[in-house]
C-alpha cells in the first residue's frame, strides 16, 4: 500500500512536470539572459583567489602546502586535473573525486585530522569552507579543457556501475530516483530546467558547469554539495560527504560528460 502511494505521487509529479514543460520557451531564454548578465563579474573568482592562496600556503601541524598533492595528473599538477576525475589512486587504493582527494592530501601532507578537514564542507552564514575555495581554484584551472575521465581501472568501472545503479534506484517516501527528475527531456520544477542526465549533451552541460556560484545563496557550491542537495530533494537520507556512494555517482556523471568542454566555476541563479 505504502509503495502504491509512492508510485501515485511519482505519477502525479510526472504529470505536473509535463504541464510545466509546455510553458513558453521565452521564460527559459529570459533566465539565460539573466545568467549571461551575471556571468560578467562572477563572485566565484573570490573563491578561486582564496583557494589558490590556501593551496600554496604552508598549513596544518606539518606546516606543508598542498603543492605536492597528486589530484590526478601527478604531484602538484593543477591544470587539467579536474578533467580526469574521479580516478583510481594507488596510494589510497580507492576511486576518489576532487573533494575526497583534497581531504586525503590535507590529512597526509598537512597533518590535519579528517574530522578537522570535513568539519565545514559547505560554507554558510558566518563560516567559510576551505574545501569549497580549494575546489574553486582547482576546477577553474581546467577551464576550456575537455572532460576526459578514463574509467578503465576495475575499481573505476565498479564505481561507474554503482553510480549508474544509484541514479536509477527508486526509493524514499516519494519513491523517487535521480532519473525521476533527470531522466526525461524538458522537465522543469518551478523555473528550473531539469537536465536529462542520461543524455550526453545534457550531462555535459550540467557537469561542466559545476561548481557554481549560487546567487540565491551567495555561496560557491561544489559538486558534492550539488549531490547532497539533490539527495535532500529526493527525500533520501543525508548523503555523507565524500562517501563511496557520492563518488560513484560523480563517476557516472563525469564519465557521461566526457568530451564536453569544462567551463566552471559557473554562475547559477
Amino acid at each position: 500500500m505504502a509503495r502504491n502511494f509512492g508510485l501515485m505521487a511519482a505519477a502525479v509529479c510526472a504529470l505536473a512536470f509535463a504541464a510545466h514543460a509546455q510553458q513558453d520557451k521565452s521564460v527559459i531564454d529570459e533566465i539565460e539572459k539573466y545568467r549571461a548578465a551575471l556571468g560578467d563579474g562572477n563572485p566565484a573568482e573570490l573563491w578561486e583567489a582564496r583557494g589558490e592562496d590556501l593551496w600554496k600556503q604552508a598549513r596544518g601541524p606539518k606546516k606543508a602546502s598542498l603543492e605536492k598533492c597528486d589530484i590526478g595528473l601527478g604531484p602538484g599538477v593543477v591544470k587539467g586535473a579536474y578533467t580526469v576525475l574521479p580516478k583510481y589512486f594507488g596510494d589510497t587504493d580507492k576511486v576518489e573525486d576532487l573533494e575526497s582527494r583534497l581531504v586525503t592530501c590535507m590529512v597526509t601532507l598537512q597533518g590535519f585530522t579528517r574530522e578537522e578537514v570535513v568539519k565545514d564542507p559547505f560554507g554558510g552564514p558566518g563560516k567559510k569552507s576551505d574545501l569549497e575555495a580549494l575546489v574553486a581554484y582547482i576546477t577553474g584551472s581546467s577551464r576550456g579543457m575537455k572532460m576526459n575521465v578514463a574509467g578503465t581501472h576495475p575499481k573505476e568501472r565498479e564505481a561507474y556501475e554503482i553510480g549508474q545503479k544509484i541514479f536509477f534506484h527508486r526509493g524514499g517516501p516519494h519513491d523517487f530516483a535521480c532519473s525521476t527528475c533527470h531522466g526525461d527531456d524538458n522537465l522543469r520544477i518551478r523555473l528550473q530546467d531539469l537536465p536529462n542526465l542520461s543524455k550526453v549533451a545534457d550531462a555535459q552541460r550540467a557537469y561542466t558547469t559545476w561548481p557554481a556560484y549560487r546567487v540565491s545563496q551567495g555561496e560557491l557550491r561544489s559538486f558534492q554539495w550539488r549531490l547532497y542537495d539533490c539527495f535532500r530533494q529526493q527525500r533520501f537520507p543525508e548523503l555523507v560527504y565524500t562517501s563511496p556512494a557520492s563518488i560513484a555517482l560523480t563517476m557516472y556523471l563525469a564519465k557521461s560528460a566526457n568530451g564536453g568542454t569544462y567551463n566552471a566555476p559557473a554562475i547559477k541563479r
Partner: protein
Amino acid sequence: MADPMKIRATMSGDKVEVKVLMSHEMETGQRKDAKGATIPAWFIQNVTATCNGKTVLSAEWGPAVAKNPYMSFKFAGGKPGDKVAVTWVDNKGDKRTDEATIS
C-alpha cells in the same frame, strides 16, 4: 579580516574600464536568524577608486546592494601602467584597499 577584492582595469577605447568584485556579507539588517533574532545590518557604506592617487569614483552604498558585490565603471584619463586602487569602508568601520595595474 576581509578577503581581497578582485580588480581588473583594462583600456576600452580611450577610457579605462574597471571591474571590481568585493567579498562582503552585505547584511541588510532586515533578516532574522534561525532563532528569530534580527541579524544586525552590516554593509559597505563608502566606495572610492583612485587612479595614481587621484579620485575617479566616490560612492555611497546602502544595504540594498547584494552580497559579494560586483561593480563596474569607466573613467577617462588613465593609461596602461597606471595604478587603480579601490577602497571600501563598511558600517562597522572595517575597510579594505586593493590595487590593480591598468593593462
